[in-house]
């Protein structure tokens, strides 16, 4: 226990400043009103859905929980159920075999059903995987998308920026 406490003390606080929102990441204009944004404020719940990713984007989503990015300190946390979520964070491309699951998760999510598409394959049809018998391309082909965060994979800072953009006013 002594070593553990010492390690915590020696490590100190590593958390860095969060990035500013970026309006360029929006796919559709802000559909939340000020009252709603104030309510969501800094208490956003995210449900992550891998709809066909190579697992690269998931690695960076994991990194959001490390002490440098410390997403939870901003009041943003991940939920195990779409029923508790304000926002779906979807990585793609959307595999044909995941379409039903993705649609069901979207239906189970309460309003305002915010959706962020993650990664080059989640944002574009012309990704490395393309469209085929097995993949139906970008996330917005299946469910409406508010913000798209490109990158292969997008960095944790880019992910934070995209998520913060969804809940920022104009």
């Amino acid at each position: 226990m002594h070593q553990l406490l010492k390690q915590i003390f020696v490590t100190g606080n590593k958390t860095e400043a969060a990035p500013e929102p970026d309006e360029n990441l929006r796919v559709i204009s802000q559909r939340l009103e000020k009252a709603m944004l104030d309510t969501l404020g800094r208490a956003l719940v995210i449900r992550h859905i891998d709809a066909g990713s190579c697992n690269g984007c998931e690695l960076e989503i994991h990194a959001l929980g490390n002490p440098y990015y410390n997403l939870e300190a901003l009041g943003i946390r991940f939920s195990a159920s779409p029923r508790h979520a304000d926002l779906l964070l979807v990585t793609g491309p959307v595999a044909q075999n995941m379409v039903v699951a993705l649609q069901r998760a979207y239906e189970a999510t309460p309003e305002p059903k915010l959706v962020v598409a993650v990664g080059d394959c989640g944002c574009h049809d012309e990704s490395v995987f393309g469209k085929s018998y097995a993949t139906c391309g970008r996330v917005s082909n299946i469910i409406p998308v508010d913000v798209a965060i490109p990158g292969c994979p997008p960095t944790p800072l880019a992910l934070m920026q995209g998520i913060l953009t969804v809940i920022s006013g104009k």
Partner: protein
Amino acid sequence: MKLLDQALDFEPLPGPLKAWRAVVNEGQLLAFAKAVKQTGGRLVSLWGSDERDHNCDHNRDHSRQCGFTLHVAFAISEGLALLTLALSAENPAYPDLAEIFPTANRLQRANFDLLGIRATGGDPRPWLRHANWPANFFPLRRDVDGSQQFEIHNEEYAFVTVEGEGVHEIAVGPIHAGAIEPCHFRFSIVGEKVLRLEQRMGWVHKGIEKRLEQLPLAAGYKLAGRVSGDSTVAYAWAYCLAAESLSGCTPPPRALWLRALLLERERIANHLGDLGFLGNDAALAFGFSQFLRLKEDWLRLSGELFGHRYLMDCIVPGGVACDLSADGSTQIFRQCDAIEREVHILAGIYEEHAGLQDRFLTTGQLTPELAAELSVSGLAGRASSQPWDLRTQNAIAPYDQLDTRIITQRNGDVAARVAVRFDEVFESLRLIRCILTQMPQGECRVPLPPAADGAFAIGWIEGWRGDVLVALEAGAQGAIRRCHCHDPSWHIWPALEHVIMGNIVPDFPLINKSFNLSYSGVDI
């Protein structure tokens, strides 16, 4: 040449790997498979190809009799033995190998779904095909262009049910509670105890092998490097090794040393992350914070020096797309010292933490016998006394000059897989220092010469999870005719179904994480 005293004439495959190929008939395939099993070898992969477009009259290669072919790769002490069996166009069937190697089951089912070649008497259930393309649509056939899209359905899959007093089922997925990949787990349980687990996979099938056939040989490395994002270096190297071997290209020595540096950096990055998540899954959030901090430091330096945090697209046909300056080398040396110091401290804390050890010890035990039976290799195999490691057993440059120590444990439980990760971090740190010290100067990339139509080679690389295999055949005018990518997880997922039996449901996430298998890599 002869292997395992079988009356087969093996020809060496091109390239630096110890790998041979023989064209066989059904009886010879079965006899060889049995000999592999008896001598402690294992099944690596199994795939097929459509050769119906070849002109029989002008074709002297017996493996192509204008039907389909089955390829089966085995790991034996001499190296890799590849057996090729010709199948007829009208009735493409082959003997069920799952009788000898149980983990052939899923590979055979996937091959039927993609190509329509069937194991006689094998499990007839689909694997990669859910209800989203018709049963008579075989995407890897050459007369199918693969761009068709079909109506989406929700599949009713025939899970095996367990009956008895108090038995009930827990259905999990495809979307899981954490930020992980999709798969459906069907648990049959009594109280807290797991009686049976059945996995339904294939959810993130992306048609990668069909897509590869539409790419130039020189460009396929990018897609191969995204079969499983956490193993991008291993896949890209395996792909490039195959592409270089079949076109007679030898990358410059410095490029090979840089590739090994990248591969060991990928191994350490993943091990650091897993050690953090394993602490977290046993309710020690301290471990998660500490190891994820170290992983972030590691990734940031990778991004700074090589242009990508996970090293995607750094390995290219003919060499590497990056170089390392003397200053960069100094930074890596310094980082290795810092990480080693901290991991030693954290290893001590994990070791002495009674609550953590209570969760780790005897949990999710994979016995050496079962690991051997299921052809389990890689990290999971080494934690169950299966000393497979290509870095020593089929060492290509620069590993032939590095003397890698194979890390093994005997207990096969979560604790053993944690211990292997700790020791492999230290061993990889040692290797990185050796690489930086011995790496020659010179150029980093040469052009990839044109490959002959039909040229074939194998790439086989020890990734952090286990051995990644890429089998590549060139087509006409610089195209890919066929490319098969194999993840070691194919053999370890079935092992997970066994080791969970008798454990309690709350230990499943911990056990699953201790293997940390790829979903995307097997769904391809």
